């Protein structure tokens, strides 16, 4: 399955395309303007245009702020976060929306 193309979400210049995935399914995906997650060394906040990052997540909540100001919260255990060209992927063995 690893060969199939990535999710078709296309982020704009000031947007982030975010997907939160757990081992057996995609928990949430969409366009947002900010994401805050807790890494092993502290909280990290990401806005559009952030440099590429690969961070290990500590157990905790991931908060996604949508363009409308609405906040989506997910619990992510045991995973990592990657940022590359305004694409953010939160990967966790166990993840669920709160």
């Amino acid at each position, binding site marked *: *399955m*690893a*060969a*199939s193309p*990535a*999710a078709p979400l296309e982020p704009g210049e000031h947007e982030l395309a975010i*997907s939160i*995935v*757990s*081992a*057996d*399914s*995609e928990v949430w995906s969409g366009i947002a303007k900010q994401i805050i997650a807790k*890494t*092993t*060394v502290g909280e*990290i906040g990401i806005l559009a245009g952030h*440099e*590429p*990052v*690969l*961070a*290990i997540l500590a157990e905790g909540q991931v908060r996604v702020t949508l363009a409308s100001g609405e906040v989506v919260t997910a619990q992510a255990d045991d*995973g*990592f976060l*990657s940022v*590359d060209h305004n694409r953010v*992927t939160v*990967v966790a*063995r166990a993840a669920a929306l709160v």
Partner: protein
Amino acid sequence: MAAQLRVYRQKIKSAQTTKKITRAMELISASRIQKAQARVAASGPYSRAVTRAVSAVATYSNVDHILTTEPETITRAAVVLFTSDRGLAGAFSTNIIRESGELTARLEAQGKEVIYYLVGRKAAAYFLFRRRDAVQTWTGGTDNPEFATAQEIGKTLVDKFVQSEDEGGVNEIHIIYNRFISALTQEPQVVRLLPLEVVEGVEAPEPGESLPSYEFEPDVGDVLDSLLPVYIESRIFNAMLQSAAAKHAATQRAMHAASDNADKLIKDYTRLANNARQSEITQQISEIVGGADALASK
């Protein structure tokens, strides 16, 4: 004569009963393929994300890490076989075992010692019958794999990989599983899991072009350390799901062929039974005619 007819009728009956069973199994597998395929699709985003992250690290960092560097000499390789728990699936498990034989020959020709990990009762039975050793075996649940099993297998392999050679560690890990391509085709896949071979999702930088600065938190080593088990697990889980879907497809096909064969048998035996019945009648008539002639000529 009558005895012959009875034998044919018995065979027809037996073929009909068998056909009922194989037809039922065919339908059950057909319905399970859908479910298994949906699980493969659902785990896609996770394994894609993990693979992309691993490729990114492998491509954009020059750090020496067990995950990304190829050891100079490889003395021992681990081979993981993904077979099924049940048979009646055509050459499903046999294909895997044959591939493992070829791989073993290839590895041993390169002077590597091969150790085995088995998934599925079929591989376990094969090894047991030939008194071949396997380090560890996981049976049960190949039809509906669980992530916890993948985690357990992954942990065992990673522990073995980071162990030093003198203590029985391995330098290479291969997996062999059936990939689900379509309901008609399943293909045995031989993949080297470690050292890393994937360069997927991230394009290799042009020579001379400066690498985009990937930032690692806390640092490259730690990120790689925690990525390694996640990557192995996701590959193994994917292999297990693919194998489960392929198994259902193989069973469906095998059972379809079996039902067709039963149909053919029923048809052939019905013909033979009709023949036997007809020749019985013919014989009776000729006996009666012969008897009447004998009486009349007296």
